[in-house]
């Protein structure tokens, strides 16, 4: 589904990704974790070409990423993304947020786009807020709308960039529940998150990154109970200490 081979990325002289290789099979759920600045967000942002890479290659659903607009369009058509800051469009209602891209990009009629949008809004349990504006919703509700908005494009895979980091604690669960149910339905997912409970519950693999490199990669059971790398142990010690 998603394949990264020997990817290098620099910001000027700073190397953000070092020889990263990663294969994600259809239906797989990957959790990416690691200290801030370790390159996890950069990695998933390369997958839908929000960031460009300098070396290596990325193949998404059979499309080999390049600067060609056609390829980028094809890849973005297959991959949905959810951001830390929700990034809902403030001047559009929840429903309008959800139908914009399906109408412009997938060329759906308004009626079809609205039907799809209402279905996904129901699914993230926010169907009764369709006519509200983002600012009228809580953070958790906004993030669920953002998930529904991405799903309206019927993507084959979803990228989550720290989807619960900007939320008040009491709202984290509703977003995670939505993600868990999405995972149960077989969606291919790559999630940058520090929610280790979520990782244990749904991840097929947990990947630990540090300084732009993939340090360790394992199924959640072994990753948490028996991390092999010192840096992984230190990191897990840090984030699990307070729970």
């Amino acid at each position, binding site marked *: 589904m998603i394949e990264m081979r020997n990817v290098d990325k620099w910001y000027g002289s700073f190397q953000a990704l070092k020889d990263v290789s990663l294969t994600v099979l259809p239906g797989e759920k990957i959790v990416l974790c690691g200290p801030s600045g370790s390159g996890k967000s950069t990695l998933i942002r390369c997958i*839908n070409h*929000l960031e460009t890479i300098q070396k290596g290659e990325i193949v998404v659903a059979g499309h080999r990423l390049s600067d060609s*607009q056609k390829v980028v*369009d094809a890849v*973005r*058509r297959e*991959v*949905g*993304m959810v*951001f830390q*800051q929700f*990034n*809902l*469009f*403030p*001047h*559009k209602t929840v429903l309008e947020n959800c139908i*914009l*891209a399906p109408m*412009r*990009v997938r060329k759906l009629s308004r009626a079809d786009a609205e039907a799809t949008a209402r279905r996904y809004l129901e699914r993230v349990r926010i169907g009764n807020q369709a006519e509200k*504006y983002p*600012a*009228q919703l809580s953070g958790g509700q906004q993030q669920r709308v*953002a998930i529904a*908005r*991405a799903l309206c*494009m019927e993507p084959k895979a979803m990228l989550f960039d720290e989807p619960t980091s900007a939320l008040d604690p009491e709202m984290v669960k509703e977003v995670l529940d939505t993600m868990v149910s999405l995972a149960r339905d077989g969606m291919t997912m790559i999630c940058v998150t520090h929610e280790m409970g979520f990782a244990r519950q749904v991840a097929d693999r947990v990947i630990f990154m540090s300084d732009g490199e993939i340090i360790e990669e394992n199924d959640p059971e072994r990753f948490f109970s028996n991390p092999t790398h010192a840096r992984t142990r230190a990191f897990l010690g840090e984030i699990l200490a307070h729970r």
Partner: protein
Amino acid sequence: MTLDFSVVTNAWQALAWGVVGTMLLAVFGMALAMVIGVGGVAVLRAQRRIPTLLVTAFVEVIRNTPFLVQIYFIFFALPFAGIRLNPTITAILALGLNGGAYAIEIIRGGVESIPKGQTEAGLALGLHRGEVFRMIVLKPALKAIYPSLSSQFILLTLTTAICTSISAYELTSVGQRIEAETFRSFEVYFTLTGIYLVISLLTMWALAAIGRRAFAYPDR
């Protein structure tokens, strides 16, 4: 000094037409400025070298030369290049170009104030850069700078008075004519001052009403 406002009241019809002329110049000038402002920012956002250079040069030339010279240039110099425009069209063009250059600067500030995440969300959904600008970034950007844009447009409305210099038909030129016939300078310009004040306040009110309607959505 005895005041005689009958010279003004007797000419109320001419003054009323002057107000119409002024409003016409102002409204069309604002519309043109708006088009230039949004279009200019769209060009800048596309980040192509030559168009960016042209827009930047346009903004700098307009913002660093007097409006009076700009309007004289269009009216008196362009005919040598074979372009001859009547005073009203010239006035609208000059007001629109001048206001447009300032509008570009103001709107660009608004666009820069919109978080990058908005653009990224649009791109991630598969929209192209132009679509992201038009459908996602533009409206919140305009909302953010609408007060500054409004004051710029009030200024544009008052600048219509300078168009009297090429004998465009507007309030100040009507006033000048009445003054020339009656020599009642105080009464005439006192009246004009009052009328401009009312025009300005009404414009401000109208722009605020438009803003309230256009940007009715709640911000956080």
